[in-house]
């Protein structure tokens, strides 16, 4: 639990998630939003998490900070976080209301949400909200906190930050709200930034600016980043490592070059094919992955992707569950690449 563990000889990852399961116990049944996720975030590096809507990316991220809403809860696995003093703690074993996790939230690990209005309260001026966050996590006077907040609003590219400090969220454009939230997350200089689709709602020039800001903070403070996105352009631009999720599991992971150049999992390949690219005008329709993510209550037996996979092998893929295994340059969970278990 919160006891110190011996410091390993290898440079340990900042965050190691192993076998994480987060389930929602709804009236209709159990939604296995996250169902055995394995991944690591290395210190100072950027891991991009890719995957379709509903495959559990946000819930995985919220599990790390222990802010999963009821009826959801972590039912298995571990989230090992290595703190600044070198000790490791298992976030999954902490109480979501404990002082320890509250200390980690915001000051060690900060999160930017997919929808800005989830972390920006609608009725409070944005400046006040940021100042409160700063005062909660950093030792500063109110006046210093205000200057820090304005400086941060400026750095995320909000024009006339001193005046915007007094603005209400509804007075800002969608993109500016997003930037205000990013300012709030970064004002405490976290060691790990979890960014859930932070630039999805932003235009390319603002996006470039935000990605730069994140890159600057990475350099300045050695911050690591877990970036959840579905924009493969962004992934190609900023990722060092990539994890591809499908139905609550990581189905392929590797360094960014291997994922783009030698994708092994049929799902990774399909994702790479479905991006509209500038200058490549598809005459008719875009190649889309057929079908949809299965109902979370009726998970397919065997391989989760089998209902949509063009390479589906009856008798194998519907019988056995592929596990992540290193194959060449990536770890992949697919029987096209991994040996089929001999029996049962």
């Amino acid at each position, binding site marked *: 639990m919160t006891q110190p563990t011996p410091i390993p000889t290898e440079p340990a990852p900042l965050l190691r998630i192993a076998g994480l399961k987060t389930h929602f116990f709804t009236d209709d049944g159990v939604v296995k939003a996250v169902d055995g996720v394995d991944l690591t975030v290395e210190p100072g590096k950027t891991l991009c998490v890719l995957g379709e*809507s509903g495959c559990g990316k*946000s819930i995985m991220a919220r599990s790390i900070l222990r802010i999963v809403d009821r009826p959801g809860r972590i039912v298995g696995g571990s989230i090992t976080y290595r703190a600044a003093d070198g000790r490791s703690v298992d976030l999954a074993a902490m109480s979501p209301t404990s002082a320890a996790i509250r200390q980690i939230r915001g000051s060690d690990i900060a999160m930017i949400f997919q929808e800005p209005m989830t972390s920006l309260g609608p009725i409070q001026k944005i400046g006040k909200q940021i100042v409160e966050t700063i005062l909660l996590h950093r030792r500063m006077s109110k006046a210093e906190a205000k200057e820090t907040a304005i400086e941060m609003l400026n750095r995320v590219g909000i024009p006339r930050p001193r005046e915007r400090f007094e603005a209400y969220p509804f007075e800002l454009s*969608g993109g500016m709200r*997003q930037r205000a939230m990013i300012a709030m997350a970064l004002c405490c200089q976290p060691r790990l930034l979890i960014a859930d689709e932070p630039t999805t*709602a932003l235009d*390319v020039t603002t996006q470039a600016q935000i990605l730069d800001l994140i890159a600057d903070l990475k350099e300045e403070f050695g911050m690591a980043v877990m970036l959840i996105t579905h*924009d493969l352009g962004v992934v190609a631009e900023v990722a060092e490592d990539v994890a591809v999720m499908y139905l609550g599991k990581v189905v392929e992971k590797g360094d960014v070059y291997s994922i783009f150049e030698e994708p092994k999992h049929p799902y990774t390949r399909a994702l790479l094919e479905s991006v509209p690219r500038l200058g490549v005008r598809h005459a008719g329709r875009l190649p889309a992955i057929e079908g949809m993510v299965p109902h979370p209550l009726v998970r397919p037996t065997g391989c989760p992707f089998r209902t949509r996979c063009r390479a589906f092998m009856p008798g194998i893929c519907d019988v056995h569950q592929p596990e992540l295994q290193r194959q060449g340059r990536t770890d992949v969970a697919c029987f096209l690449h991994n040996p089929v278990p001999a029996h049962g």
Partner: protein
Amino acid sequence: MDDQTPMDDVILDVRDLSMHFPVRAGMFGKTHSAVRAVDNVSFQVRRGETFGIVGESGSGKTTLGRCIMRILGPTGGEIGYASEGAGMVDLAAVEDAQMRDLWREIRMIFQDPQSSLNPRLPVIELVGQVLRKAEGLKGAALADRVADLLKSVGLRPEILHRYPAAFSGGQRQRIGIARALATKPQLVIADEAVSALDVSIQAQTLNLLQDLQEEFGLTYVFIAHDLAVVEHICDRVAVMFLGEIVELADTETLFAAPRHPYTRALLSAVPVPDPRQRSDRRLRAAAPAEVTDTATACKFAARCPHARDLCRRQRPQKRTVGGAEVLCHFAGEI
């Protein structure tokens, strides 16, 4: 206006549209200026086409869409709309009651699915309310129609009685699309309709929007920031910068030969999905801009690599160069 060629079948004819937000004294100290979110914008949309609007955050795209929907009352200009029933009407001037009728024909898909879906209503109400009102549907008939709509946007019909909180961002966005399409509208203002969707759902949704367009002859005003998406789906594109349209052309022309320096900056900022081409992104990140009172200068001058003296002294006029309308003194020369 003066030398605009009349188009065969115009559904939307926007002239000199402005939306200036008054600036409250408390917010900006003593300044008594206004935020010129939309500033003298004119364009026409043809029936059945997809008209794209791109531009960076805060450039006035959403505000423009909200003016067309009359969620906002514009502070100047006209919005001619060729209604099915009522002929040509000026949306900027119609009575509220008539506008409510027109909301069946003109629908909007909102940018922020979080705040546009009432968290206290189940999906069947969110999508079906408008059908109940417009067509008097209820009971099983309503449930069937809503279920069909959900299927058409890639959602499972079993979710009819769930509430927005149980969905992921992308799922919520698709509920918003189903709602917008429920009344078989003529004109759909899609504000970042696919921006929150992941690639595969995005591809499916774009294909769906195209199918529906062919089937029902829909017209889209497609507001987006993803240029690859815009290039894929739009027939013509307007580029907005600080409340103005700085370039308007058909898609091929705009992407093959961008004329305005801002359009060029925008195109070069698109990340390429290839890690080996990881470019020097830092060069492309632009300093944020905002509307100030620049009655006597080009609004892009502070960021423009081609800015000259004239640009800081005089507002450029719209010029037509190679099939594109460009708001730049030196369009065609640079």
